[in-house]
């Protein structure tokens, strides 16, 4: 199986550790991983701001870089959801359509395609799980608290395979952290308040780490934790699943 790794632009620039862990974890599980050169961005920053029509260049670049792989994997639910819903190519419409079906967020790839049942990982810490909205409600990585339906969680299932990890319960299991792309600056006051409240829930329950399948939410919460000089850290789920 040959998969291509898509590392979102801000992860590439600010959180290389999350991307490294994703790569190493996949390799550990026997997957041949390619990292196509010249990849940039999924186009979401423009699209969510109302400029989807300007995302054409991003789209074409994406399709050129990522055509022909069995799967495309990315450690970001938000970017994957955007591509699944909005990627299209004028130049290569068929390939564009194909990518939309072949792109997976890391944890859903691990549970649904690789069907991972065990992991050689250990993380002896108290951890709070942040359900990022686009991964959870968009990609349906976990059951949503609003619905009357059986509970499940793909990231949760994987974390339970990690030795010595202690997952903390939260008061609000799937409330948004308030990042929201350009929302975080355009609606600064509400965004920060949402982030503070989300972080406080984790702290109240003794989390040493906040993890999740989307680095952007974690970046937002990290910004708040560091501003408050908290000892609690954020960590991408790939780094926990890849820990030893």
């Amino acid at each position, binding site marked *: 199986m040959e998969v291509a790794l898509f*590392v979102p632009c*801000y992860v*590439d*620039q*600010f*959180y*290389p*550790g999350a991307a*490294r862990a994703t790569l190493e974890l996949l390799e550990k599980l026997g997957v041949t991983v390619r*990292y196509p*050169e010249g*990849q*940039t*961005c999924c*186009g979401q*920053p*423009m699209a969510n*701001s*109302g*400029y*989807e*029509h*300007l995302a*054409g*260049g*991003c789209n*074409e*670049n994406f399709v050129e870089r990522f055509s022909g792989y069995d799967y495309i994997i990315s450690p970001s639910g938000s970017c994957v959801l955007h591509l699944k819903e909005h990627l299209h190519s004028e130049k290569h419409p068929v390939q564009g359509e194909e990518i939309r079906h072949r792109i997976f967020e890391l944890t859903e790839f691990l549970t649904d395609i690789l069907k991972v049942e065990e992991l050689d990982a250990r993380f002896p810490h108290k951890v709070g799980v942040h359900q990022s*909205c*686009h991964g959870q*409600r*968009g990609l349906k990585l976990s059951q949503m608290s*609003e*619905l*009357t*339906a059986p509970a499940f969680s793909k990231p949760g299932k994987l974390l339970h395979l990690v030795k010595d990890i202690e997952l903390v319960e939260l008061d609000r299991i*799937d409330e*948004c952290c*308030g*990042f*929201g*792309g*350009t*929302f975080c*600056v*355009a*609606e*600064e*006051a*509400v965004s*920060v*308040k*949402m982030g503070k*409240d989300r972080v406080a829930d984790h702290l109240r329950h003794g989390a040493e780490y906040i993890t999740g399948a989307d680095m952007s939410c974690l*970046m937002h919460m*990290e*910004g*708040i934790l*560091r*501003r408050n000089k908290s000892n609690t850290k954020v960590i991408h789920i790939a780094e926990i699943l890849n820990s030893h």
Partner: protein
Amino acid sequence: MQANEKKHHTLADHFNADEARVDWHDKTLWFVRTKRDRLTHDLLEWEELRDTASQIKSHVLSNLSQYLEEFEQKASANGVVVHWAADAEEHNNIVFNLLKKQGIDRMVKSKSMLTEECHLNDYLAKQGIEVIDSDLGERIVQLAKEMPSHIVLPCIHKKKEEIGDLFHEHLGTEAGVSDPQILTETARQHLRDVFITRKAALTGVNFAIAETGEMVICTNEGNADMGAHLSNIHIASMGIEKIIPKRAHLGVFLRLLTRSATGQPITTYSSHFKKPRKGQEMHVILVDNGRSRQLGRTNFRNSLKCIRCGACMNTCPVYRRSGGHSYHNAVSGPIGSILAPNLDMKEFSDLPFASTLCGSCSNVCPVKIDIHDQLYKWRQELVKAGYTDKKKTVAMKLMAATLSSPTKFKLAGKLGRLTLKYAPFTVNNGLNPWYKGREMPAPPKESFSEWYANRGKDKKI
């Protein structure tokens, strides 16, 4: 007023000046959301009910003209006078003329978001007609000279002490009294006198049934019934989208409405008005006011399915932390943000951006409106129509050019990481708003792609 002062982010910023109050507001509404969860999670067929309701509404919207005519015919046969209003002004005129004909200058009104949308009270006041709102929450905001901040819980933004002060000033309670029991009792006595003395009553309509010409009105307080049954003339105002085909469909909608709204199994009163009381006049005004235009917008048509339960407001993390007034529209919150741009794209161009697109609203919606997808689509429409900041467009074009080109991206990244000035989400706003409450990520010494290029040299993949 400066253009920016009326925008959501500015109003939300003011609301957040008092953090303890934001916490209180958030917790109060979250409490309502958890009550809703308790009731809905109990019902195994909940999701099937939502699907069914959504499909009934899809059907209605696809056959609305016929159902409107059927309703008109049945209601007329029942002795109800049917009026049609193309817009808010015509609606207000119809109400005024009905009152004038009877020489009435005082009216009691139960909750109707449509009359808020039409600014009926202001209009009638200018004509010398006094309107008293009889829903407790609405009466409170009326005394405070404010708009409702929530469609179901109109004064949810007010603390009981503030309500106590209002009652002291207007209804003569003792200074400092804020016990909800005492305040409610005071309002009961005050409004009972109003019900007894008013000859005209206006109500909203929750559901209008084409098959029977009935109008169903739901309240917990009993105020719609008190007003209507004691009046000589009952006027019911409804948007044209409130029609449902059959009486049996009430079984679906009444099961959904209050469980979603307040976490009750049903409202205390679900009153079915078919014919006027002996000697009474009953009127219904069918109001378009932009609804037929929204019906024609394929992307936003489904917003007309709304049954006004307010669940999307209670669950919305932005609404809970910005307050209903920050939406500067009669209907606030997520549903208001997809309805308002249809009324005035320029004035409400900010609302679709007052969201993180988290999607919780769509999940609680009892008629399964794809609210967060419509917010996304409104953003595209508003940008194309030129209702957003021109500077933002320039910045977006620059960003799009950078992100389309691997070479430019690499360069920008290198510069960016060094100076921490580059991050796609801060485009056009700079980093100041980010830094106000947050730190930026600590810059790594190399990007992933740089690390990978070096690793490739060792491993020769």
